[in-house]
C-alpha cells in the first residue's frame, strides 16, 4: 500500500510538472490544462490521505485499499477523457460548419459574374 501511494504521488507530481511546463511553452491552452491539474491534485490528495481510502474501501465492501485507489484513479481519468470527447465534438462541429462556409464563399467569389450555375 505504501509503495503504491508513493508511486501515485510521483505520478501526480510528474503530471503537474508536465502540465506546467507545457503551459509555459504554450503547448497547451490554460482552459484545457485545468482538467489535468485538477485530476493531478485529486491523485495527490488520495495518495496523501490513506484514511479516506480505507473508509471508502470498507464502505464499498472491498477488502483491498489499493484496489480502491486504482478504481478511483481510473474514475478520475475517465471523467477527464470524457470531457475531452465533448470538447472535440464541439470543435469538430464548428470546424465542419466553418469549412462549409469557406467553400461556399470561395465558390461565390469565383462565380460572381454568373451568380447562378
Amino acid at each position, binding site marked *: 500500500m505504501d509503495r503504491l501511494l508513493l508511486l501515485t504521488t510521483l505520478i501526480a507530481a510528474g503530471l503537474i510538472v508536465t502540465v506546467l511546463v507545457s503551459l509555459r511553452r504554450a503547448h497547451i491552452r490554460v482552459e484545457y490544462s485545468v482538467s489535468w491539474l485538477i485530476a493531478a491534485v485529486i491523485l495527490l490528495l488520495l495518495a496523501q490521505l490513506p484514511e479516506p481510502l480505507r473508509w471508502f474501501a470498507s464502505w464499498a465492501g472491498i477488502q483491498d485499499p489499493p484496489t480502491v485507489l486504482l478504481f478511483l484513479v481510473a474514475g478520475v481519468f475517465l471523467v477527464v477523457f470524457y470531457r475531452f470527447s465533448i470538447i472535440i465534438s464541439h470543435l469538430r462541429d464548428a470546424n*465542419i460548419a466553418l*469549412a462549409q462556409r469557406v*467553400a*461556399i464563399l470561395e*465558390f461565390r467569389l469565383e*462565380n460572381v459574374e454568373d451568380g*447562378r*450555375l
Partner: protein
Amino acid sequence: MTPSAPVHPLLEAGRALILIPARNEEEAIGGVVDEVYALFGKIPVLVIDDGSHDSTAAIVKGRGARVLRLPHHLGLGGALQAGYRLAFELGFEYVVRIDGDGQHDPRFITDMINAVAQPGVQMVIGSRFVASDDGYTSFLRGLGIRLFRAFLRPILGKPVRDPTSGYVAVNREALEVFSKSFPLEYPEIEALVVLRRRAFHFIEVPVSIRPRRAGRSTITALKSVYYLVHVMLGVLVNILIFDRRRWR
C-alpha cells in the same frame, strides 16, 4: 452540346441541380459529367470535391461544370451538406444527387425529377430493388440492407427497399431541411429519418446500378459492422433528439 432526347422542362429551365459528391474520382468523374451533358445538354452540375488528392476538380472544371471545393476532407455527409447549402442559397427547386464513380446511370434523372415534382413528395430514392431483390453488390451488403429494412420499417411507417441508395432527389422543402441539418457520416439512412420526423414523404423509383468505372468502393467488408452500428445509433439519437425537442 445538344441533348440526345427531349429534356425535362425543369432541367432545361435550370431549376434543378445535379449534385455529385466526389473524393479521388479522377478516373470516373469526367465520364459521369460527359454523360449528363450528353443526355440533357448543359444543365447545372455541381461536383463537391472533398479534399481529393488527385485531379478530380481540374477534370470537372475542364468539362465546364462547377466545383465546390472543400478546404479539407469532411466525409460524405459534411460534403453533401455543403452542396445542399449552396444549392439552397442559389435558389434551386430540385436537387438530384448521383455518385461520381459512374455507378448511377444518369438516364434515370428524368424519372427522379418527375417523381419528386409531384405534390406531397419531398424526396425520391432511386432504388435498385423495387422490382426484384437481385443485384446486391455483395453478400454482406445484401444482409445489411435486409437488416436496415426491418429496422427502418416501424420508424418510417412504410417499407423502404433500398435505404442506402445514394441516388436521391429532393424538392426545395427537403433541400431546406438538408441545408440546415444533414447527418455527417454514412448519411443516407439517417437522412430518411430526418425527413420522416418532419412528416415528409418519400417514394422509390426503380434505377439500375452499374459496376464502378474505376477505383474501389469506400465501404469494405471490414467497415461494414462499424457502419451498421454507427447508422443504427445515429437513427436512434435522431429520434431521441426530436422527441425531446417536441416536449419543450
